[in-house]
């Protein structure tokens, strides 16, 4: 009996699942029985490799790197000797100076990027766009996508107003860059969703697959996203920044969540024609509904920005959608005024 209990506790101990009470019991069983003690100490002490193995590791790595260099010379940066490394620093420094000057020149020129072709979707409408480079973009309602005039020449630059889901074709030579509001993402070939409506006070960038680099012009920071990441940048964007009221920006990194019974994260469910909310404050809820059903929905109580709603709706009428949200929030009221729906 005691032995069964000891083995059960030891198994739990290995998994780090012992409660304080069980720990005491285990200790007692070890003290009481020397055979238990032998097994316990054996399990608790791991055999580790000696640090002397590190020389072997170094050698193994050099060998591996050599093989990679032989196989694909262009994919492996060449290593430099100490002397040429010094030279390299000099060159690097001068390149940095050129680069900085160039960046300044570039940023002063940046306004000059011309966008020629544009696609747009009406409120309540969704569109699938096949871009000339093989990428596909789904546009949600009330959104616009612009293609740069020289799209696919050097880079593939597009501009988004609204919400779009991007499945970008892989092409290392021509990076795919999306600008929206005050941000820009650079892409290697991935799937991601951007929500950046002019009338919402935040942008949400959600990465489903691959990798993206996001640059915010608001704070100059670069963020790297891994699959399942969602970056929300919020600001009191409508207020002009002034000395006593500086513009505040908030950056939040969260994990994408897949609601029960769904296959995709909430941020991408609109692709399946589902209207999904993921802890959205009421101002975003109103904005989403108004874009989905093409009706003006307004908020008449600033406090509601603290009330959130989570859920997914498929084939709901506007009335059903509003009813569901009202049911979830007993404090929420609704009225109609000149064709507009007002939440308060």
């Amino acid at each position, binding site marked *: 009996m005691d032995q069964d209990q000891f083995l059960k506790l030891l198994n739990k101990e290995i998994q780090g699942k012992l409660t304080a009470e069980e720990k005491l019991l285990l200790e007692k069983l070890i003290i009481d029985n020397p055979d238990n003690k032998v*097994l316990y100490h054996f399990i608790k002490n791991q055999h580790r490799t000696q640090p002397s193995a590190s020389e072997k590791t170094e050698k193994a790595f050099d060998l591996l790197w050599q093989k990679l260099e032989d196989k694909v010379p262009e994919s492996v940066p060449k290593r430099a000797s100490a002397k040429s490394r010094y030279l390299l620093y000099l060159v690097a420094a001068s390149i940095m100076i050129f680069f900085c000057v160039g960046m300044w020149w570039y940023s002063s020129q940046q306004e000059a990027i011309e966008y020629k072709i544009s696609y747009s979707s009406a409120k309540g409408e969704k569109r699938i766009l096949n871009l000339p480079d093989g990428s596909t973009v789904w546009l949600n309602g009330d959104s616009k996508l612009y293609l740069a005039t020289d799209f696919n020449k050097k880079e593939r630059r597009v501009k988004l107003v609204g919400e779009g889901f991007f499945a970008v074709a892989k092409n290392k030579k021509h990076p795919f860059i999306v600008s929206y509001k005050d941000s820009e993402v650079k892409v*290697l070939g991935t799937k991601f969703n951007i929500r950046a409506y002019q009338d919402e006070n935040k942008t949400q960038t959600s990465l489903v697959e691959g990798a993206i680099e996001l640059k915010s012009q608001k704070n100059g920071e670069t963020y790297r996203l891994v699959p399942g990441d969602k970056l929300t940048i919020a600001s009191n964007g409508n207020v002009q920044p002034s000395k006593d009221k500086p513009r505040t920006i908030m950056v939040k990194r969260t994990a994408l969540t897949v609601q029960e019974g769904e296959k995709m994260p909430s941020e991408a469910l609109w692709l399946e024609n589902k209207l999904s909310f993921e802890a959205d404050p009421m101002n975003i809820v109103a904005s989403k509904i108004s874009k989905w059903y093409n009706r003006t929905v307004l908020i008449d109580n600033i406090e509601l920005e603290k009330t959130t709603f989570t859920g997914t709706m498929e084939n709901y009428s506007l009335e059903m959608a509003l009813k569901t949200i009202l049911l979830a929030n007993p404090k929420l009221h609704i009225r109609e005024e000149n064709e507009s729906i007002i939440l308060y």
Partner: protein
Amino acid sequence: MQKLNQDPFLWTELRYAIVFNRDQLAFKTLFKKFYSDLYEFGYAIIKSPEPVEDIISEIFMKLWLLEDKLMEIENIKTYLFRSVRNNAIKYLERQHSHVDISEIIDFNYQYPSVEQEYISSENLKVIQQIIDELPSKCKMAFTLVKELGCTYHETAAIMEISTNTVDRHIQLALRRLRDSITLRKIKS
């Protein structure tokens, strides 16, 4: 318990440096972190140094050439160990085409130093013998958990079995060890 704890944040940073900057140093950091444990694990299966070295080298070469597909690997530790395990078994299958592989996998770890403070060398010999006599899959699960500090969850991912099965393997190993320690001590 000293563990091969995989810091998920470190992996996030490393894979970004590898994917975006083709950073050799980041790649080397990754290599150094896992090499000796992967080597020991592979050696326990194949018991010959060169093929193990080749297997590990091939796995890391493939990793470097994956480029941005690398972003899809969530848990690098289980990915690496699983690759070593699968490639080692494939290697043995090629070597002994008509032999049942599960009979060959045979961990032969030495248990020096630390344990001896608490456990007599006779007991250690008994333990080694019992471990050698464990069914091969049970032995692999036990080695991953005890020697390589894998969680049950990681062990399950590496061996491509369920966590419950890992738990059963560990239970069996512990019971046999416990029973034999008492039994053989009495005999001798």
